[in-house]
């Protein structure tokens, strides 16, 4: 480059000064109206649409909130049986996946940038080549797909290519259950427990309240039976488990048993129920076995036994036999997905075909076997003449395939999907596809010769088969409600199950149990920053996973003082951080799946370790040895699991103790005398919240929902280590008792909105201030960032934005354009140097107020639903006007177990709690 002349330098200097001066004017905003405005759309007002999102291939009905065609938030659809109005972390976080800038945007092939037409040419070439050699051996590999349209199009494709096969495997499969029920009933089945009809539930390693496609629905059913005001109707939950699950934490009685001992326990209970198998049951838990079996028998017709996903099929068969003896409220249905056989078998058949070179074209839709089945599978992919991967991301499997095709996100697609009970729903798009992507259904139509498939037409053709009367009005109704009534699988009548031979598990000093991660499931959500930063129940761990061992094992294997360990299981070797967990069975190592991705995207790559090699070897003996180094672990602020040192923080009652309680632990704050000035509402509203600790199952749906609603940014692992997490709502974990008797309780903590708020007098600029309705508001524009309020808050719910987390920060994708499209336009995106905290979703309050005042009426009870409340699958959170004596929140506040957190401080919090109430078996305590 020639050196700059003096004259040029002066030119540059002058023009830069001129540019600086010119930039000192106010920017001009543009208003860009529609050309043709869509029907019913009102700019600035949200529109809600019913659709469905998927987890593990099962649909869960959702209501999408959109602003000017831009979806910003998902909530559960009350009409859909798989959500019943509640949600879970995955449903809440699906919206972020839609806008993930790491999504693939165009087909990639041999020349890196390719088009759909080029892929079709390659596909046609492979087909033409194969047809000459006797049949086109097309193999489609997918996760569980329940879409009736996909099934219809597959059948059409299979007619054209008779040698084509569809293999499906879900990484976290339900093979044990279907095979176990096949043992019992001679055909594969799915069990659908009606928990709302049960009085006694025994879980044998089962985790109905844990993460999974059915969590919202099962948790809702559970909550309907945990109301302490109907004592006769309160369900009793027993859990036998090896490692902590949400079900165990919420159980009235939890037994910590190694996997082999769970089998023994089940056999012993079965023997008490009349299984005369001649074996002598283990005597280790004789009294517990008697207490449980007597309780089950006392509630015949309303008692059930549930076996867990990772338990052997024989145990599922045994549970089915016990349920038949008990007349349990369980429906049996045919498996919802239409591919017959087990997931493992289906994948093995494909692997066999690939090995023998009998595959002309392999198309992988949505699955990622190169990650969860390991590199062996990616080598096998190369044996197919043509290999293509369709997915949201160019992931590990995409790298192993010749072609990668971008898949439309479900919120961009017209499709249909079945829920876990078989109920079908129409999936309608909330937004046009952002990229050059297609749906799996459109891909099938493409390769069968439909050169311009419209996914809308494909879905309508599936349902327009006559019998729907006036199809147009039927279609509109089905789309509007988000659920097609009467499509649920009908319970089949089953023969009396046979009593299986349960082989006692082989001896093993140490076995490993694995399961999907509560934050990122099987790894498919690894690039979702909200979920990576969602604190896992119990451990509050974020951005990674750990090997969890019991204190006894840690001592024995010499890793008590080590931070890292090497886990060896056959050929699988895993180096990872160790976490010592009280209340975990001796001889059991627990790990969660989904981490250690290498091609997830910039958020998910290299986070945690990959535990998938252990999945196939679960319940097999492993060895453990200390090592010196490994990846770091991260936990959120307040992570230390709190001891229930005094019952002011997490009081617990049994039903019997509650009945003896004369008056509420803490009276409602409005009736407490005070000498201090308290705000008096003039327009009849005093907002308040009550959280029922007894109903909180610790699922974190509220935490992620709050992030979506309130534009709460993620901060990334480094900032987490500096205790700078930004969650406006956290779920505290309290523990009491020791070792096997350890009890854990959950307590969600948003801002308390204290009437005498300690944060307010210390603010030098009145940025922390009360409004007349009792909201403790934070005025971002006044805040100068002294953080005095944070120091003075006894509940530690205030969050300081240190580094413009929502803006230019790697873990927020540098505020890429698509990410900012997710933001709620009714909530400020906070800048650097500002304190922020829970606002009681003030934007929802004012929206309801404006609506009510336009109609010249008061806001009705239940009209304001906060984001956390809407998400909660158990309805643990109630919110409303405390000055309305007939409101639900007042009724909650006058219950006996009502208490305020740290009430002795005199802060008079508006957010109060209902203490945890359990329903223990009176016989149990006498036995142990």
């Amino acid at each position, binding site marked *: 480059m020639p050196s700059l002349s003096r004259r040029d330098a002066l030119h540059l200097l002058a023009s830069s000064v001129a540019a600086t001066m010119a930039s000192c004017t*106010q920017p001009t905003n543009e208003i860009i109206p529609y050309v043709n405005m869509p029907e019913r759309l009102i*700019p600035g007002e949200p529109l809600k649409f019913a659709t469905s999102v998927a987890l593990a291939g099962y649909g869960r009905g959702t209501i999408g909130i959109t602003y000017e065609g831009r979806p910003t938030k998902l909530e559960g659809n009350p009409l859909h049986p798989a959500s019943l109005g509640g949600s879970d972390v995955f449903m809440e976080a699906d919206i972020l996946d839609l806008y993930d800038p790491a999504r693939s945007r165009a087909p990639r092939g041999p020349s890196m940038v390719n088009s759909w037409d080029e892929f079709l040419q390659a596909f046609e070439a492979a087909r033409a080549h194969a047809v000459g050699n006797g049949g086109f051996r097309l193999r489609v590999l997918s996760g569980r797909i329940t879409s009736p349209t996909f099934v219809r199009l597959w059948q059409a494709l299979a007619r054209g290519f008779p040698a084509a096969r569809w293999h499906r495997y879900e990484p976290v499969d339900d093979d044990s259950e279907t095979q176990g029920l096949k043992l019992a009933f001679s055909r594969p089945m799915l069990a659908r427990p009606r928990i709302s009809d049960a009085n006694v539930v025994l879980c044998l390693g089962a985790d109905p309240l844990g993460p999974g496609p059915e969590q919202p629905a099962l948790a809702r059913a559970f909550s309907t039976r945990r109301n302490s005001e109907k004592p006769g109707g309160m369900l009793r939950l027993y859990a036998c488990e090896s490692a902590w699950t949400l079900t165990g934490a919420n159980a009235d009685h939890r037994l910590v048993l190694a996997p082999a001992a769970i089998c023994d326990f089940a056999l012993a209970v079965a023997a008490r129920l009349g299984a005369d198998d001649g074996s002598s049951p283990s005597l280790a838990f004789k009294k517990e076995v008697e207490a449980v079996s007597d309780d089950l028998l006392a509630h015949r017709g309303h008692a059930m036994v549930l076996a867990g996903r990772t338990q052997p099929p024989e145990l599922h068969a045994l549970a089915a036999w016990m349920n038949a003896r008990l007349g349990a409220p369980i429906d049996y249905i045919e498996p919802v997905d239409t591919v017959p056989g087990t997931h493992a078998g289906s994948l093995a058949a494909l692997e066999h075909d690939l090995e023998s070179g009998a595959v002309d074209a392999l198309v992988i839709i949505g699955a990622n076997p190169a990650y969860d089945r390991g590199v062996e599978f990616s080598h096998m992919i190369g044996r197919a003449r043509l290999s293509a991967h369709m997915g949201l991301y160019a992931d590990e499997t995409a790298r192993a395939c010749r072609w990668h095709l971008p898949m439309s996100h479900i919120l961009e697609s017209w499709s249909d999907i079945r829920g876990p009970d078989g109920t079908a729903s129409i999936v309608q798009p909330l937004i046009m596809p952002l990229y050059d992507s297609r749906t799996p259904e459109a891909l099938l139509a493409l390769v069968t010769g439909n050169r311009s498939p419209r996914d809308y037409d494909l879905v309508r053709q599936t349902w327009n088969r006559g019998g729907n009367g006036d199809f147009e009005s039927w279609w509109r109704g089905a789309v509007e409600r988000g659920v097609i009534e009467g499509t649920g699988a009908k319970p089949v009548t089953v023969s009396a199950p046979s009593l299986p031979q349960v082989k006692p598990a082989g001896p093993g000093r140490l076995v490993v149990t694995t399961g999907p991660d509560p934050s990122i499931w099987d790894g498919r959500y690894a690039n979702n920053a909200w979920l990576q930063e969602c604190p896992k129940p119990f451990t509050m761990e974020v951005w990674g996973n750990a090997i969890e061992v019991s204190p006894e094992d840690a001592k024995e294997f010499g890793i008590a003082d080590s931070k890292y360990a090497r886990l060896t299981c056959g050929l699988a070797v895993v180096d990872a951080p160790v976490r010592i967990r009280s209340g975990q069975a001796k001889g059991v190592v627990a790990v969660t799946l989904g981490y250690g991705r290498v091609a997830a995207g910039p958020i998910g790559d290299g986070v945690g370790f990959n535990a998938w090699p252990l999945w196939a070897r679960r319940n097999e003996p492993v060895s453990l040895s200390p090592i010196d180094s490994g990846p770091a672990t991260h936990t959120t602020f307040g992570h230390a699991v709190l001891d229930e040192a005094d019952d002011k923080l997490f009081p617990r009652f049994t039903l019997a103790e509650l009945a003896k309680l004369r008056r509420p632990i803490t009276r409602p704050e409005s009736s407490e005398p005070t000498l201090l000035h308290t705000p008096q509402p003039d327009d009849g509203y005093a907002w308040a919240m009550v959280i029922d600790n007894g109903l909180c199952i610790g699922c974190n749906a509220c935490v992620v929902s709050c992030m979506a609603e309130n534009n709460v940014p993620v901060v990334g692992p480094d900032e987490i280590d500096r205790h700078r997490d930004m969650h406006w709502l956290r779920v505290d974990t309290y523990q009491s008792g020791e070792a096997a008797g350890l009890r854990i309780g959950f307590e969600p903590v948003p801002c308390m909105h204290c009437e005498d708020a300690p944060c307010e007098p210390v603010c030098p600029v009145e940025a922390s201030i009360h409004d007349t309705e009792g909201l403790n508001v934070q005025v971002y524009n006044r805040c100068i960032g002294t953080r005095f309020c944070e120091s003075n808050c006894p509940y530690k719910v205030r969050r300081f934005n240190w580094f413009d987390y929502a803006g230019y920060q790697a873990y927020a994708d540098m505020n890429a354009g698509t990410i900012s499209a997710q933001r709620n336009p009714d909530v400020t995106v906070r800048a650097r140097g500002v304190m922020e905290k829970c606002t009681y979703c003030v934007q929802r309050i004012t929206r309801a107020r404006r609506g009510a005042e336009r109609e010249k009426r008061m806001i009705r009870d239940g009209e304001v639903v906060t984001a956390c409340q809407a998400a909660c699958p158990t309805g643990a959170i109630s919110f409303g006007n405390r000055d309305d004596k007939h409101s639900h929140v007042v009724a909650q506040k006058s219950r006996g177990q009502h208490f305020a957190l740290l009430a002795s401080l005199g802060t008079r919090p508006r957010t109060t709690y209902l203490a945890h109430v359990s329903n223990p078996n009176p016989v149990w305590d006498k036995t142990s």
Partner: protein
Amino acid sequence: MSQLFGPRANTIGRIVLASILVLPVAALALHVLLMNSPYVTGQTNTPEQPVPFSHKHHVTEDGIDCRYCHFDVEKSAVAGVPPTQVCMSCHAHLWTNAAMLEPVRASYATGVPLRWRQANRLPGYVYFDHSIHIAKGIGCTTCHGPVGQMPLIYQARKLSMGWCISCHRDPGRFVRKPSQIFAAEWSPDDDPAQIRRLLSQYLISTKHLTDCSTCHR
């Protein structure tokens, strides 16, 4: 040894003493003037528009109601700028060849929206809602000024927080009868009884109106 202070020292001393008194007051006055000046508030700001749309012509000369174009103003937080379709509902028949309207016809033909410039702008942290102001009897011209007299739209009021608050503290001076809300000309009612009647009719209570959370969240 010469004098330490020369003859000019007295003058300098007087000037310094006067400055100590005057400068802070002057600085404050300058600040107030500056912050209230159109340079900062944007008052009288008349942005150039893609089409020189005259409210004066459409409102006063043609007598078109505000809501013909800003049809969502009673339902939504934003009044809404009309889609091209609304312009064309008349201009497909009137002035169909006017050169001035070429961008409108082009927008309708190509589907590319017109890009209007915002004249009345509030900061991003203010959540103003048109619909509730209409519902509570606050007329368009109270904030937007004599739009019916504007050949080109401009910002007529300061739109500063102090200006907003002055009404939120005492809205009685500005509430109108329902029939007057969209009127181009309106003068305040001087009858206190009438104002009280309107305030109670609109269920306006002022206490919540000055809460921070009313406009900021």
